[in-house]
């Protein structure tokens, strides 16, 4: 009880790392997610369902398997290994790896969220914009984007929250290196596997929850301001 909400230095490092990972994953995935959702909503390509299925894979497969597949692709001996080495990017056991793992696992959630919002946009508005001289891209930026703003925000919140909780893929791809890739869930995992570590694990859980509440309130506030306009 005396250790209630006292975090060790390693815990604090894990919290900062988790914030970095969640922000990084969200920022990387948002533009991609928007583009993908847009494609899925507006394209008339027949292969759409196939692409959608691929995007959903990280949701369907256990996170550990996703991590394993990412390792196969991005590892030293992996498909992209030589390429990544040539541009001097290390994924495995690095912060980039943790971000990549979170981004991949949360991606289907983000795409889905944006997509639902985008499907609800009134086509007529887009048409009106086109007759007013806005090209496809122009209308995308000035009409579709702001009108799906709340959905994008929801997608970002989902992604952030999922990143905070991501364990399986991260531990495989990024390893569990304290101070480098040990995010909150990894630290919690360690604690829960130690008899008597429950209190420390709970502390970290509370930090996670506080973070997610902060993001939630922020996104609600932004969403309200989007609606008010």
């Amino acid at each position: 009880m005396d250790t209630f909400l006292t975090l060790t230095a390693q815990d604090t490092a894990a919290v900062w790392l988790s914030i970095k990972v969640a922000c990084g994953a969200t920022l990387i995935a948002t533009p991609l997610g928007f583009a993908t959702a847009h494609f899925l909503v507006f394209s008339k390509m027949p292969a759409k369902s196939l692409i959608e299925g691929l995007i959903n894979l990280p949701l369907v497969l256990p996170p550990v398997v996703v991590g394993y597949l990412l390792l196969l692709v991005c590892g030293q001996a992996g498909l992209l290994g030589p390429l990544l080495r040539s541009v001097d990017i290390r994924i495995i056991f690095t912060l980039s790896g943790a971000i990549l793992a979170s981004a991949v696992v949360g991606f289907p959630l983000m795409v889905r969220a944006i997509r639902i919002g985008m499907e609800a946009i009134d086509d007529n508005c887009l048409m009106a914009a086109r007759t007013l001289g806005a090209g496809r891209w122009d209308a995308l930026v000035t009409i579709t984007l702001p009108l799906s703003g709340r959905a994008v925000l929801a997608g970002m919140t989902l992604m952030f929250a999922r990143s905070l909780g991501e364990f399986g893929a991260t531990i495989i791809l990024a390893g569990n290196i304290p101070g480098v890739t040990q995010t909150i869930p990894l630290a919690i995992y360690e604690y829960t596997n130690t008899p008597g570590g429950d209190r420390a694990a709970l502390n970290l859980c509370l930090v996670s929850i506080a973070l997610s509440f902060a993001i939630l309130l922020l996104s609600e506030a932004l969403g309200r301001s989007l609606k008010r306009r």
Partner: protein
Amino acid sequence: MELEVDIEKRLGAFCCAAAFTVHSLRCGVFGPSGSGKSTLMNLLAGLVVPDRGRIRLAGHTLYDAEAGINLPPEQRRIGVVFQHARLFPHMNVRRNLLYGWRRTDPGDRRIEPEALIKVLNLGHLLHRGVTRLSGGERQRVALGRTVLACPRLILMDEPLTGLDEELKYQIIPYLQRVLDQFAIPLLFISHSLREMRLMTDEVLVFHDGALQAQVSTESLARSDMATAGGGYVNMLHLGPPRQVGDLWCYPWGETELVLTEGGGAGDKFFELEARDIILLKGRLAAISARNLLTCRVVGLFGVNNRVGVELDCRGNRLVAQIVQESVCEMGLAAGGEVVAAIKASSFRRIV
């Protein structure tokens, strides 16, 4: 403008087919509800792709099924005022109004936003979100937004519905002036023959998706004499008035007309229904009609049991609508003389 259209489009059981060429700058589209007017607009603007055919505007091909040409809407530069405003819900009135204007080449920006905003009486609403406007306010924003885009052709789908009469007759002359000044051609949908006569010279009449007739607005108005409750309306262009007692004298060509209605400087347009003109021969003891004009009968045209009497009144043209029986009784015939009695209150100012 030279708009050449020959298209066909099937929508469920409904089929819209039209082949016409419009030369006049101001053309109307007329037809009952569900006859395909809005569909035609969508086809012209590029919002709906025809099943086959061709659309050419001022020499540019906008669509040609055979040649595989289909310009996207933003390249057609055809402005549309939709039947339901379709404003951008996430922008305020100002940003809605300027959306198209900002996307117009500065060289083509021939219309002044300030002036238009004033005419549409939107000045006090500029920073309001469009979801918090009244029905008429929304309609005005939609109208302004399209006009400000300075398009090569404007399509208007019942743009004046939901507006009170006063506002309507404040907007119409402005529209006329702007479109005229910059020679922007207009295709105008309306159920109101009066709006049609003010805004157009020529009309496409649709029925059940098919173009039924392409006639001058004038002859559409004349044929309206035949319909129940319809009638021909003279449109008079009068000079600046001077007050005489509590009435007003307006120059009309070589002669003058006495009206109950006053007005400032500048020329004015007035409506005068053909059936408001009473024709008489001889002199009365007293008559309430303030205008007694001696006219020559130019010709007679009949529609059902009504007869249009075309009159020449010192160079001015006028059509009076009477019944066949009166024609016989009064012995009216081309070349004859007759007095047209018109009450000072029969005139209706429209512009």
